[in-house]
């Protein structure tokens, strides 16, 4: 039990480190690069992302038996939530992982983005429990 716990923390740490490194080297932590993608000036990162999806698609076909049963599904928040996320992303240049890359590159104001994300997630938790109460099928539910 003790050893599997250590292994679990090491796995999560290793995956986080790898993902941070890769995202940073693609350039997703750089608002200049991101903005030039969003105004359709330089689509390099969009191709990188699409290529990653294509590669994952092939990989998931091979690994089909290992994929957990849990599915994402339509729910009332899918469209308004995605819109809100898209607008926020265009403004602060950070999706929930890119904020760490910005901080890692030494961008001090990204601290503010981080505070914002924590507030946003917390606010959603409260608002959801009070008013929405639909199943969000969020990424990790265990």
């Amino acid at each position, binding site marked *: 039990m003790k050893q599997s716990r250590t292994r679990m923390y090491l796995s*999560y740490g290793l*995956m*986080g480190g*790898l*993902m*941070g*490194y890769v*995202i*940073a*080297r693609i350039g997703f*932590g*750089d*608002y*200049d690069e991101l*903005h030039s993608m*969003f*105004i359709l000036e330089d689509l390099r990162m969009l191709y*990188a*992302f699409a*290529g*990653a999806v*294509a*590669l994952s*698609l092939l*990989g*998931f076909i091979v690994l089909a038996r290992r994929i*957990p049963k*849990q599915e994402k599904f339509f729910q009332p*928040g*899918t*469209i*308004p*939530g*995605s*819109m*809100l*996320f898209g*607008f926020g*992303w265009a403004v*602060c240049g*950070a*999706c*929930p992982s890119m904020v*760490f*890359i*910005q901080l*890692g*590159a030494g961008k001090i*104001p990204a601290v*503010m*983005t981080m505070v*914002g994300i924590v507030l*946003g*997630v917390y*606010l*959603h938790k409260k608002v959801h429990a009070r008013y929405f109460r639909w199943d*969000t099928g969020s*990424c*990790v539910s*265990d």
Partner: protein
Amino acid sequence: MEYWPWWVGALALGGVSLAYLLLIGKMLGVSGSWAKVVGWKEDRELARSAAELEDADDGEIEDALLAATLAEFGAGAMDEKSIDETPDSGATETTATQTVTHTPWTAHLTFLLAMFIGGLIAALTSGQFEIELQLSDTHSRIFGGSMEIWLSLLFGGMMVGFGTQMAGGCTSGHGLSGCARLIPASLLSTVVFMFSAIGLSLLMEAAI
């Protein structure tokens, strides 16, 4: 300041999403990790009650359930107890196996913090590291003064936090893991957030 060409990035990012599935056994999804870290209190209580359930012997659980049933429905409910007994014991068993695979919120925190370290290493080794009081030249050009920069980031961050939770995923959960499995909700979500971001960026560009 050299970034990877698109195909190196595609190989590496696709590799990360596959490695995550192989090593951790779940689909990659960063906003889910955020939700677990921000909701650490609930997660801690869940883990505690799971541990209590595991430690307590079956007789103890049964007595507690019995007492709770009596308090809730009165003695009348007990008449049906003998009928329900067999399916009841089965239900307890499945709950017990489910709680064993519970991932504590600290593992998700480790994941997020490691992402910062990975980004830091990438920035240091590729000469991109630079302490700056602005996000980037373009960001400052769009938002102007330092007050506006900090406020835009706070509100942008709040929209990202609230929006990803509401949509049930973000770039990694819907965009990468979901689209690669051709899940309709993820494809829709990805199209919506990409076009929202593109639309607003074009508007911001036109407004300066």
